[in-house]
């Protein structure tokens, strides 16, 4: 009996096209960068790239974590509240036990709070959007309770080493930028090449199907929230390191910028689709647009209008010309 093969092999040319389509948003970023290189003398300088990465560090870390969350089908709106609490905890521990203990402590607090967020969301079965929103209110409140609403700072003699993350390191990038790039790569590999990463896609793509396949969807989500907490703590320590202090109102609202970056990169907010490099590209688009305007000396009044239009164009071009599935 002869059968018609459904999976006809594609000509090579076709395959390549498919890839180009997938990377549509990258061309958006390249186009913007080209424009800036041609129109300013300062964009394509080492100093500016060091700035760019430094500016992208916080949102980059949060966006990397947000990618895991969103691909797995949840939002973590509590990430920056967690950031504030862990940074505050980090500073307080620093005061008593030194800088290294402070950094480690911050990471532990961040991961622990993230785990708590995850447990709350999973066990109450509340939609993560509203669940983490409530949790974020609680964590911000907690930050106020711990600090009494004041600023906390490491002891004066600790300050220099506390500001490690602002120091230049690899290629002259600040240590904070390097941490962001490293985390993006690590989490990217986790998502791309590990069983955990595959489970994240599975849970986000079809939770019931994942459950029927024996995947502990709850554990996956708790783990994802814990990682998100860890990244928040890292971002928090970088911010505290820059400021030389921490306070309850740190980084309010940046969780939304991070989600926006993830979506601009082309990861679907519906879950199950997306990749880590997309978060990075999204963060870079947002950062480069802001950076470019400042370098171009444009009037900031029109900056907002043009920023909005550019984001729209980048995302629309991706949707219209390159990718079929708009998610």
């Amino acid at each position, binding site marked *: *009996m*002869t*059968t*018609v*093969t*459904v*999976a006809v092999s594609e000509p090579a040319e076709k395959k390549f096209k498919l890839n180009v389509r997938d990377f549509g948003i990258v061309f958006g970023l390249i186009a913007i960068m080209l424009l800036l290189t041609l129109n300013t003398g300062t964009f394509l300088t080492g100093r500016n790239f060091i700035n760019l990465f430094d500016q992208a560090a916080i949102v980059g870390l949060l966006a990397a974590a947000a990618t895991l969350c969103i691909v797995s089908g949840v939002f973590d709106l509590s990430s920056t509240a967690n950031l504030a609490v862990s940074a505050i905890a980090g500073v307080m521990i620093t005061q008593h036990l030194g800088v290294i203990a402070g950094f480690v402590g911050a990471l532990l607090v961040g991961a622990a709070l993230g785990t708590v967020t995850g447990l709350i969301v999973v066990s109450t079965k509340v939609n993560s959007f509203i669940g983490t929103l409530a949790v974020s209110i609680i964590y911000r409140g907690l930050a106020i309770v711990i600090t009494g609403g004041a600023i906390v700072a490491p002891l004066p003699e600790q300050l220099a080493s506390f500001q490690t993350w602002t120091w230049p390191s690899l290629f002259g990038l600040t240590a904070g930028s390097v941490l962001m790039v490293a985390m993006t790569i690590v989490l990217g590999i986790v998502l791309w*090449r*590990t*069983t*955990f*990463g*595959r*489970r994240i*896609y*599975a849970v*986000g*793509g*079809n939770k*019931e*199907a*994942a*459950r*029927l*396949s*024996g*995947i*502990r969807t709850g554990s996956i989500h708790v783990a994802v929230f814990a990682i998100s907490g860890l990244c928040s703590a890292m971002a928090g320590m970088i911010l505290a390191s820059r400021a030389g202090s921490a306070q309850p109102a740190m980084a309010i609202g940046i969780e939304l910028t991070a989600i926006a970056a993830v979506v601009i990169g082309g990861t679907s907010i519906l879950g*199950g*689709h997306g990749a880590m490099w997309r978060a990075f590209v999204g963060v870079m688009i947002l950062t480069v647009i802001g950076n470019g305007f400042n370098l171009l000396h444009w009037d900031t009044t029109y900056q907002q209008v043009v920023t909005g239009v550019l984001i729209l164009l980048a995302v629309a071009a991706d949707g219209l010309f390159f990718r079929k599935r708009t998610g």
Partner: protein
Amino acid sequence: MAIQQLDTPERVNRSAAPEITLAGIGKRYGASTVLRDITLSVAPGEIHGIMGENGAGKSTLLKILGGAIAADFGVVKLDDREVKITEPRDAIAQGISLISQELALIPGLSVLENVFLGRWANAGSLLRSRRDADHLERLLAETGFELDPRAMAGDLPIGQQQQVEILKALARGAKVLCMDEPTAVLNEAEKAKLLKVIRSLARLGTTVILVSHYLEEVLGLVDRVTILRDGQHITTEDASRHTPESLVGLMVGREVDFLIPEVRPVPPEAKTVVQVAGLSSSKVQDVSFTVRQGEILGIAGLVGSGRSETLLAMFGADRTTSGYVQINGRRLRANSIREAIKAGMALVPESRKEQGLVMSRPVDENIALSTLSGRSLGGFVRVAREKAAVSGISHSVDLRGARRGSLIADLSGGNQQKALFAKWLLNPPAVLLVDEPTRGVDIAAKARIHGMIADLAARGTAVVVVSSELEEVIGLSHRIHVMRQGRIVAEFDRNASRDEVMTSAFLK
């Protein structure tokens, strides 16, 4: 095809399939009891059929065994050992795999990734996709399924998705395989392959529990058969003691005539209603045909041959690149579903979940959706009229299990299919396009739907039927077109034989 190779090192020892005993299983949803005191046992290595009308509780029973839902009463014993199965994980740990009626694939992952879902080969949790790829290649060779391992599961036609589900269970090395209507979405060739696989598995000691509405298929395959009716266990008997008629009698509790009704010949003076001329889209090329008043045109073909796409293109749902459709001499604007509907066209799509029904909404609302404006006043829905109309049509298609306000998602699969059919018959159409109209409906309801199609034709509707069941196409149609790779390649009248049609569909 060497089925013995199924025993790869990754597998559990098949001879260890346990005896399964269900004792007093019961399940309630709110105030309605869907399963009541089910007690039965399945021997190791047995192929056990479960049959019953739509809504009898077959899927519910399988879901309980597979851990997808928890029973409210009763216990499950494996080899006389009571086991607690509250999550699919528990069932999988016991070697029980469930292939549920509503397919459960991850649309954004590839076939390869789906087949080994959750148990990918890895070293220190880093994926070793090569090993999985090799494993899958073996499985494909053993089963004879033809799938592209790299294709996204969400892009596959539903029949291939079903095959992925089956491979998934095989890859897990299940000792007990629970299959809920696995053949409903397969075409003849695929069905044959699957049945072969099931037989080989059973020979190797795997227990298979099978739900199906195809009487011959069940009788030809299973060792014993259990009949459920209204959530109750009627009987479990050797299949050899039964004929299709006797099974139906047990299932329905009365005599039913389930043969496809004789379709009346089209009168020679009947005028042409539908004219399709050179219709092309990305999936079909240069499709042309006509359908006359009262005529039923069947379209046969393999999966991916473009049958569904032909209907979608006619209906204005798929973008066409050339060609047109005329209804009663009036040419339809291309790519306008609304105009097609206005011209009296109706499409019963092939996938009720993706294309047909809004799962989050009540049954009534779903049935009334496409004809809303006909029963509105100043933009307001005339609820009383709607209720009357819906209850009338629900009655005609024998829709059961819907309570006031119940969501379409809470209906059994077959009843959802009936609702889908009802939706497009609410206003009798001038042109009816149906794609797999009886997918998953029980034998009695199937007869009813066939009767309704024949009836509509008799009253002048032009019908186009697409079905993977050759009997359905041949039995129901006046004429049959066969499609291959997006083109019409052959035409037969209703006296065509199965073999003739099959051959032309397969010919390269």
